[in-house]
């Protein structure tokens, strides 16, 4: 072996199942910046094979327990899990506590990575698309993404996954009353977890009624009852996911979804870059100067914004 591109080597090692190499690659995309861009580009070459499943739902509904069991139920040789938890807005720190509910069930087969949102709103971390890409390029399949458990139903996962699973529990109805329409938009499969509790059937009936009111053409969201702590219903859930995958393939929807995903990512990346640059401009000298004038009321906020905006569009991006 002559001197090879170290990144190629790292990808090859990760692809052969080396978890440390894969762990390092994920850290690289999490850090963002130039290295992340290189890793993303390299991963892009080999990605596109894996099925991507999103698992979302309110806090404590059982997402992690389900996700861990699901990885095992898939029977795949190299399943991967990305588990997202929120960063503290004040300190940037995070407690990533999903893994504790997974490890016992998945055994050694799954690769599990916990990720903090690092300030990204919407239940996912900024690096999620790249992380999925890296796992995919390394040969992991399926890739199951657990979103942050948020009060309202998290919809951004639907843009990142092929199949979106929304987890509710008995008595869920009132909690998401306001957002039932949003739910319908994103859910390919509903899970009523904690079916060991009273009125799981009632929850299913609620969902059926809601779906009767209207669903997207071609696929009516299916409903699966699970008791994840006992592992009950998880095989059925995996079967439903496979059925949905087949539907996506046959209907051409898979290609449409993935096109949309890549398009969305382009816009997201531009937005992110612009946000960073806005931040830089506000903090640099001319920004400080303009803000000082706003402080003294010599300049209106609107005029200051216009002034700084003109430097944003004329400035070269930092670092070249």
């Amino acid at each position, binding site marked *: 072996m002559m001197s090879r591109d170290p990144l190629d080597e790292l990808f090859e090692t990760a692809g052969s199942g080396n978890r*440390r190499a894969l762990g390092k690659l994920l850290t690289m995309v999490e850090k963002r910046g130039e290295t992340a861009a290189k890793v993303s580009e390299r991963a892009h070459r080999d990605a596109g094979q894996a099925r991507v499943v999103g698992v979302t739902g309110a806090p404590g509904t059982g997402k992690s327990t389900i996700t861990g069991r699901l990885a095992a139920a898939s029977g795949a040789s190299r399943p991967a899990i990305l588990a997202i938890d929120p960063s503290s807005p004040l300190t940037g*720190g995070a407690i990533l506590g999903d893994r504790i509910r997974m490890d016992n069930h998945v055994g050694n087969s799954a690769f599990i990575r916990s990720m903090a949102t690092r300030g990204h709103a*919407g239940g996912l971390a900024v690096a999620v698309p790249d992380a999925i890409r890296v796992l995919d390029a390394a040969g992991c399949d399926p890739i199951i993404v657990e979103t942050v458990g948020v009060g309202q139903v998290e919809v951004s996962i639907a843009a990142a996954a092929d199949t979106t699973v929304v987890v509710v529990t008995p008595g869920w109805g009132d909690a998401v009353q306001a957002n039932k329409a949003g739910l319908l938009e994103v859910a390919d499969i509903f899970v009523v977890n904690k079916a060991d509790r009273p009125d799981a059937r009632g929850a299913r009936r609620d969902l059926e009624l809601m779906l009767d009111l209207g669903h997207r053409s071609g696929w009516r969201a299916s409903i699966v009852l699970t008791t994840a702590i006992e592992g009950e219903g998880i095989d059925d859930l995996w079967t439903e996911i496979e059925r949905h995958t087949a539907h996506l393939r046959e209907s051409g929807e898979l290609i449409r979804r993935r096109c949309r995903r890549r398009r969305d990512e382009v816009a997201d990346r531009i937005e992110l870059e612009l946000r960073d640059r806005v931040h830089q401009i506000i903090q640099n000298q001319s920004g400080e100067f303009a803000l000082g004038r706003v402080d003294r009321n010599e300049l209106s906020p609107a005029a200051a914004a216009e002034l700084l905006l003109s430097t944003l569009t004329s400035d070269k991006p930092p670092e070249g």
Partner: protein
Amino acid sequence: MSEPPADTSFPPETDFGAPIRVVLAKLGLDGHDRGLKIVARTLRDAGMEVIYLGLRQTADSIVAACEQEDADVIGLSMHNAGHLTLAPRMVQAVDHAGLDVPVVIGGIVPADDVATLIDSGVAAVIGPGASADEVVSAVKAAVDRQTDAQ
């Protein structure tokens, strides 16, 4: 462990740089996890990303988590008088896996045992009543020393 979702007043992602990633766990049948939970919050509040493994871990399960999570440091909490066997075993497992991850210990460790643990490769030992600052500095110092050594 859920927090309110981040809002738009959040500073851009770049401000975070790369937080220290720490794996926290207890080995074996020791059920005293109160201290570990407090330490998890303390480190979170100091800006670290805490991968919380909780109770009943083994040296192997911790090493496996460290690889996948690309952790910078391992924090163990020990209250069952097993530290003289378990802590060196953890350090060996880390070395054996070829990881450059320091091991920090907290909990009940008699003063006489501290030097023995440090000799066996443990990066720091923190006892009951330690302040948040002491906990945070011990973890940060362990990471810094490891980084410098490379």
